[in-house]
Structure formats: C-alpha cells, structure tokens
C-alpha cells in the first residue's frame, strides 16, 4: 500500500528523500510504500524519529501509535508545537 507521509518543524529532516515520481513539490510530504497493515508506531521506528512527545494525525485526526494505516492514508507527525 502507499500512504502520504508528512513531517514538520524539527522532524522535517527525517523525511525520506523525494523520489522521481513525487511531483507534489511539498517540502513536508512524500509518498511512502509500506506493507499492508503497518502501524503508526512502525513507521516512527522505521524513520528513526527522535524520542520524545509527538503529535500524530491520520487523515487530520489524532491517532495513537498502534493505529493501523490503510492505503491512501495521510500520516502527519509533529513535534510539540504551539503558538497563538
């Protein structure tokens, strides 16, 4: 399956390099091929994200690490951020 992965702020450097097929031009999002049923936590391990709190969205809703991803999902991960 393929998902869209997006990383922000201090996590942006952990994005895999953009493939030739990625024409989005986004500085934060990439397509990512994964085995079916991969969980959020498994993606985090695979990316080797730094330890510490994270805010995770799947399709714009908060999701826990054991959430199983589906084809076409958008997974977005943020370090703690705030403002206002």
């Amino acid at each position, binding site marked *: 399956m393929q998902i869209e992965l*997006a990383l922000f*702020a201090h996590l942006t450097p952990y994005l895999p390099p953009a493939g030739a097929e990625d024409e989005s031009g986004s500085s934060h999002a990439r397509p990512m091929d994964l085995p079916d049923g991969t969980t959020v936590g498994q993606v985090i391990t695979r990316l080797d994200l730094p330890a510490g709190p994270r805010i995770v*969205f799947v399709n*714009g809703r*908060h999701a826990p690490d054991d959430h199983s991803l589906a084809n076409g999902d958008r997974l977005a991960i943020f*370090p*703690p*951020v705030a*403002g*206002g």
Partner: protein
Amino acid sequence: MRSIMRLNMSTLSITTEPVPDAWARYGGRALTDAIVFAEVPPKADPLGPEAKIVFAPGLLGGTSAPNGGRLSVGAKSPLTGGIKESNAGGQAAHALAKVGIAALVIEGVAADASARYVLKINADGSTEIVRDDSLTGLGNYATKDALDATMGDVKRYATITIGPAGEMGLKSAAVAISDPDGYPNRFAGRGGLGAVMGSKGLKAVVIVDEGLPYLAHADKDAFNAAVKKFANALREHAVTGQALPTYGTNVLANIINEAGGYPTRNFSDGRFEGVDHISGETMREVTVERGGNVKHGCHTGCVIQCSRYFVDKDGHYKTKGVEYENVWALGADCGIDDLDVIAELDRNCSDLGIDTIEAGVTIAVYMDSGKLAFGDGAGALALLEEVRKGTETGRMIGNGAEATGLALGVEHIPVVKHQGLPAYDPRPIQGIGVTYATSTQGADHTAGYSITANVLAVGGSVDPLKPEGQAALSQGLQIATGMLDALGLCIFVAFAVLDIPEALDAIHEMAEAHTGQKWDTDALMQLGKEVLTMERLYNESAGFTAADDRLPAFFYDVALPPHDAVFTVTDAELDSVHDFVADTATAMGISKP
C-alpha cells in the same frame, strides 16, 4: 508605592493617587477591569467624554519575572460594546511599573478635536503634556520617528502611539507599543482601543525609564529563587524552549491546517492549499536566507522569545513576526499565499494602526461579497490605502468585519460580540468555539486557548471534533488567562504551566515574594475568577445576554471540509462556562455596575 496616574484631557490636568487597598492585589487586566468597572458607565459612548482608557502593567511588571512585562490596555470597546482588555508586549509595561505607575488612566476629551497631544512621563515621575498637531495623520512608524527626534540624549524610553485609524475613530483601531529596538510594532490590537485613545486627542505617550532599576521585592532571595524555577520550566518545555523560539507562533500554520481547522477564504474551508508557502517553517527559511532576525523577546525579560523580524528581499526590516494570526488573517483567510504580500499588508496595518486579525477577516468578508477576488493581494493593499485616505470604503473596512459584511450583504460574517474570529475554525476545533462564544472579549482565541488540549496535546487531550469536555476546558483556561493577564505574564507561559506543576508554584511564589502578600494556587485562580466576574457583570449592564454567547448561525448549519464538521456544543453547556460568576461576585461584595 504603586500609584494611579490620571490625565484628564478636558482640562489637561494630571493627578496621581495611591492604588486603593481594595485593588492592592490587582495589576494588568484585573486593574484595568476594576477601573473601567468602577468608573465608566456601561452604557457610556465608548468614544465620548465619560469613557476612559487605562494602561496597566501586571502585578509583576517592572520585575525580572520571566515573560512578566506584558501590558494591559482596558476600556469600553467601541467594537464589541463591552468591556475590553487588549494585551500587548513591548517595553511600556516595564517602563510604567518602574516609574511606579500601576495604572495610567486617560479621561475626558480634548476641547479642540483637531488637537494632537503627547504625554511624556519622565523617569522621576514628572510629566509634560505637549500639543503637537504636526503629528496629525501620521502612521505609527512616522509618529515614532517624530517622537524620537524630540528625545535628545535620552536613549531608554517606551512609546504608546496610534496611527490614523485611531485618529479617525475606526472600530478596528489598535494601540501600538514600542519594542526593545524601538519599533512601534507590538499591539493592543483587538477591540478598537486605538479609537478610544484617539477620541481623547491623545496621539502618543512616552515613558522614560532611563537609569531605573527593576523594582525592589518584599523578599529578594525568594523572588530570585522563584524566577529561576520559572525560567527553568520555560526552557525545559518542548514548546516554550524549542518550537516557539525556533519558528515563532507561525509554527502553528501546518498543524492547524492538518487538523482541518485553518480557516480559508472566509471560513469556507478548513485547509489552505497554499499553506506550505506561508508556514512558520518556510518563513524561518526565507528570513534566515535574507539575513533577518529570527529570535528575540517582544520585551526585556522574555525567556521564550517567539518574536522575530521579517525582512524584505534586500534584507531590510519590514515588520515584526509575522505572527501566526496575522499570516492567517491576511493570508489564508484572504486566499493569499505570498509571504511578501502578507508582510506588506501586515506592515500597512501596523502603520495605519488597525488590528491585523480584524483587518484580515474584514478583507476576506469583502472578498466573499464578490467585490474582490480571493487571493488578490494588490486589491487587499488597495483597500488598506482606502482606510488611510479615510474614504467611505476605507471607513467601512476600518470599522471591521461585521460593518463590512452587513453593508455588503455577505451571508457568512464570522464575528462574536461584533469582533472577528481568529485563526481557528470552531467547527473542527470545538473547544475554541466555546471560548469565542462565551468570552467577555468577543471572539478571542487568547481568552481561553483551547487549542492546547484540542490539537496540541498540551495540558491533556480533548477530542476537538466532539462537544464533550469543551465547556470545562474553556472555563479553566479562561480563568487561568485572566490570572496571567493580571500578573502581566505572557500567556505563552501557559504551555509550560499546564504540563509542569512547578511552573505554577513558581508563579505564586514570585507574586508572594515580590508583593509580600500571601499568594497560593487558590489565590491565583480566585484572581482569574474575579477578573472574569467584573467583566461579565459589566457586559450584562452594557446589554449583553446569553444570546450574545453564541457563534454565528453558519457555524451550526454549514459543514466545513475536510471533516464536514459543524459546531455541536449545546447552549446549556455554553451557559455553564460562567457558572462561578454569581458566587464570586458575592464573595467580592460587588454587583452589576
């Protein structure tokens, strides 16, 4: 000794009196509220002779309390018609506090409406009131330059100024405060308080604090220990120690967009396709590339340092920030995705002296009428030029989103209590909707920043798409905010305070060690409740009812993509937010003014 300084513009006389015992524990928002509550009739014309405008540093103003130099500006708002506290950074709060002024109250109106006055407060507490009509119509930046030219060898002073919008009495007019570098770029933006200042004939206040040390404390060692504890907590928390100083407030653009709550093109979408061009990450890259400043405090003593300067392509200062709210209002809400255009709009708003949030929301409403295409940055700039010229269209725009929407027959006018909604759509982020609806201030995110638990996982977690728990969340945050505003602390300390218990302890320890009064956690929360109680009672007397504590109908009826969300918090829950007011009023021994 803390004193209240009064300038009567009708007689041009200045008096000073000690802060009455009843207000000994009040600073900032608590003190502006208490003075407006006691002295400005709730039905008074906000731009008339009975109105007053009050400038108050917090209880910790003039000390080294981290992030403790915020200024409260209070009045009856010409925009909302209710009581208003508009909060700003900049150097004025510390300067006033160091001179010994707990509140500066401007009363009456100048006999000659064409006169422009400058109040100068010297470091020894002496004052001068100077008429200078050559300042008429000048923007904040030119006004600041003109004031600088009168200061001779004096280097350390803060200014409070208004631009032409304030002189014209426009309902979105803001009050500008000078920052540590002297730029007039920090704003008490919301609620039209620039118009109140303008109505009095007061163009500027200059406060000289050259040579003045921080204030003395009742217990110096205890104060310094508490300061250390507080500063450590602010440095340790990932938000206040890392994200805010690195990216500024605009770090929020991506996450609010991700959550589907980034209001786009007059609140018709929850995601903006151009967000990547205007996000905090992109802004940092652009600013660094151009050699701009990407981290400083808006006032001396800020530990978090979320402020920065945006520079043009040649590396010249353009404006501060740009803050998340401003980038959103003048960007996504208007469909504009060019940072340089947004910065130019921001600079113009700052110079004119109008609230950037209200300006953006208003331009978006204007665009929604069909008179200008969404995304037309040149057209948006031209509208601000109309404001500067004071044309009919300009006055309409300068009077805000509701005035503009009603005049043009726009269906979706995003306002509560006549004030434009900030940068979070209340349908997919319902907690902030509760704050918008119920705040005494009109739609104001800072009044109870439910984005914390709704989106940012700070201070717990409450599902943003569901109504459950939102009223309690907003209530707690509104009370805490009232407290922080009264102490003069920047509300961004809350991100650390909500997660690190020692930070809250440090706040009452600083208050106690500085004042010698007894302070604890309960007393802090009591202070927050007293703030809201005065405001709530005042607004009731000004004519507000439960019907004013609601969002505009389209937030309940029109589903917002991508989550197809509508606002579902019930009226009963909204009405529960102020359930403590009656008891607090009894305990305070006050009733409706």
